[in-house]
C-alpha cells in the first residue's frame, strides 16, 4: 500500500463524549431530593453550587438543576458540596451476596 499524498495532520473537532458514555464509569449516581434542594423549593434559580462545581459540565442550571447521567462519572462533588444536603450518591449496584459470617468463614 502506498502512502497518501494529501497532508494529514491531527486536528480534532469538539464533541461531547470523546471518552464515550462516561456515565458507565459511575459506581454511584447523584439523586437530588427536590424537597431539600434550595432552588427546587423556591422554584427559581438560586444556589447552583452543584452546577458551578461539577468538573464534568454534567449539571444544567435550573430549578432544580438536572444531572446528565449519560456522562456523569459519579464523582460525588455535587453531593458533598450541596449546602442543603439535597443530593445523595446511591450505588448503581448492590453488593454483599458473599459476605463473611461472624466466625470469619465465607458463606
Amino acid at each position, binding site marked *: 500500500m502506498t502512502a497518501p499524498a494529501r497532508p494529514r495532520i491531527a486536528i480534532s473537532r469538539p464533541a461531547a463524549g470523546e471518552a464515550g458514555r462516561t456515565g*458507565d*464509569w459511575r459506581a454511584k449516581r447523584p439523586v437530588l431530593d427536590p424537597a431539600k434542594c434550595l432552588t427546587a423549593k423556591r422554584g427559581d434559580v438560586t444556589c447552583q453550587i452543584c452546577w458551578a462545581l461539577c468538573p464534568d459540565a454534567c449539571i444544567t442550571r435550573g430549578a432544580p438543576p438536572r444531572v446528565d447521567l449519560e456522562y456523569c462519572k459519579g464523582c460525588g462533588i455535587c453531593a458533598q458540596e450541596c449546602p442543603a444536603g439535597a443530593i445523595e450518591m446511591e450505588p448503581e*449496584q448492590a453488593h454483599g451476596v*458473599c459476605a463473611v459470617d461472624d466466625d470469619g*468463614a*465465607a458463606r
Partner: protein
Amino acid sequence: MTGGRAAIIVRMREQNTYAIRWHGRGGQGAVTSAKVLADAAFRSGFAGVMSQPSFGAERRGAPVTASTRLAREPIRDLSQVTEPDIVIVLDESLVALGGPTAGLRPGGLVIVNSPGSASDLGIEDATVVTSDVTGAAEAADLIVGGQPMVSTAILGAVAAATGLVTMEAVEQAIEHAFTGSAARKNIEAARIAFECTAKGA
C-alpha cells in the same frame, strides 16, 4: 460445577495455551491483576507467562483491558489478546458495553465480578461464572480512596473458577507484589473470593 466448564478447561489444556483478556476500569487495577496472575501462574508451573496492559491514557473509571497468556512453553506472541479463551471482568457494567464478549472463543469462560447470577448477564455461547469480588474486598476492608479494590480479590475467583493457578500460588504472588498490611488484606480478599466462587475443573 458444570460439565461444560470442565470441557473448556480440558480443551484449553490440550491446546496448551490460555489466552486471557481482562476488562476493568481505570483505577480498578486490571493491570495489577494481570501481572499478579502471571506471577501466580509461573509459580503454578507455567513456563510461559505474559501479561501486558493495553497502552493508552485511560483515566480512573474509563474502560481498560489487559492481556495475559499462559503456556507450558515460553511465549513469543506479544500482541494483545483478541480471541480470548477466558475473559475476566472486574466491573459488571462493562458486560453491557459488549467489550468482554468481543472475539471470545465459542464455549469460552467468562468470569464476572457480580453479586448477581450468571444467567442474568445475557452472555451466550460461553460458560459464565459470577463472583461478588467487590463484596469480598469490602469484607476484607480492602478500601482505598473510598473504593473497594477488586484487583487482587478477583484472583481468588480466577483460581477457583479455572483451577489453572493454585490459591497458594496466588497468595505468594500477592505477597510478592504488596507489603505488610496491604498484602495481608489483599490475600484475605482473594481468599474470600476463592471461597465463594464456584469451583471449576
